[in-house]
């Protein structure tokens, strides 16, 4: 008689810790760092994408695209008309002004979110951050 044992694997929180902090040179491509609070969304639910951008240069447009592995399905742009610094210095805990964009994804899946900066001085978009977002 064969006895079948079903093993249930229950995911646990991580136990590993980031370590060995060192200094590295900054590059012109990472003058801003996008920080977003969630990486998992519900399909069909409207969100406001709030992000804090930290840099010392001025940009006119921040563009966020959300794409599946094969094509761009959503893209947003936000223009800063008053030429004020889009990326003021300071972090999210320094009362930095947040930037908000609407976000609505109806199809569950795994998407790649990228954020870009554009200005007259940088005709090529400068990517500031990118990561996966899961829509359930």
């Amino acid at each position, binding site marked *: 008689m064969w006895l079948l044992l079903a093993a249930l694997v229950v995911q646990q929180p991580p136990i*590993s810790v980031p370590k*060995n902090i*060192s200094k*590295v040179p900054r590059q012109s491509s990472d003058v801003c760092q996008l920080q977003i609070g969630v990486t998992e969304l519900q399909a069909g639910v409207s969100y406001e994408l709030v992000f804090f951008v930290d840099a*010392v240069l001025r940009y006119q447009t921040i563009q966020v695209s959300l794409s599946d592995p094969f094509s761009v399905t959503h893209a947003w742009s936000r223009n800063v008309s008053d030429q004020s610094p889009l990326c003021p*210095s300071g972090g999210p805990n320094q009362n930095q002004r947040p930037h908000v964009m609407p976000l609505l994804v109806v199809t569950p899946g795994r998407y790649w979110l990228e954020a870009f900066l554009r200005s007259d001085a940088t005709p090529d978009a400068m990517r500031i951050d990118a990561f996966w977002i899961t829509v359930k």
Partner: protein
Amino acid sequence: MTFLIAVVLSASLFQPPTVLLPTEAFAYEFPDAALSAESIDRFEVSYDGAAFTSLGLPPKLSTANGISKYKLIPPQTSGTHTFSLRACNAVGCGPASSPFAFAPLSSPTVAPGNITKVPR
């Protein structure tokens, strides 16, 4: 002898913060095996003991011996600050790293003075 030991212990407790130039950022390491095995989907950072915020899963700076480096660009606010990092997955977040003290290089606050004449 007792006095000498006391001095050594005091020196080790008060490490000066790492000075950060405007052209510098920080990097932290995380094992690739743990990233996969623990299904890490983001790192989080806390500045000055505030609530943790997500960094997402940044691109790898480099990988050597199964350990990858990731970049962290902290705020350039003057003064001494700390940050802690932790890895998270869909279930929750792991333990945080020990607070790391840093101080962005700020402009000098004292101007040269007492100008006098000296022979060339």
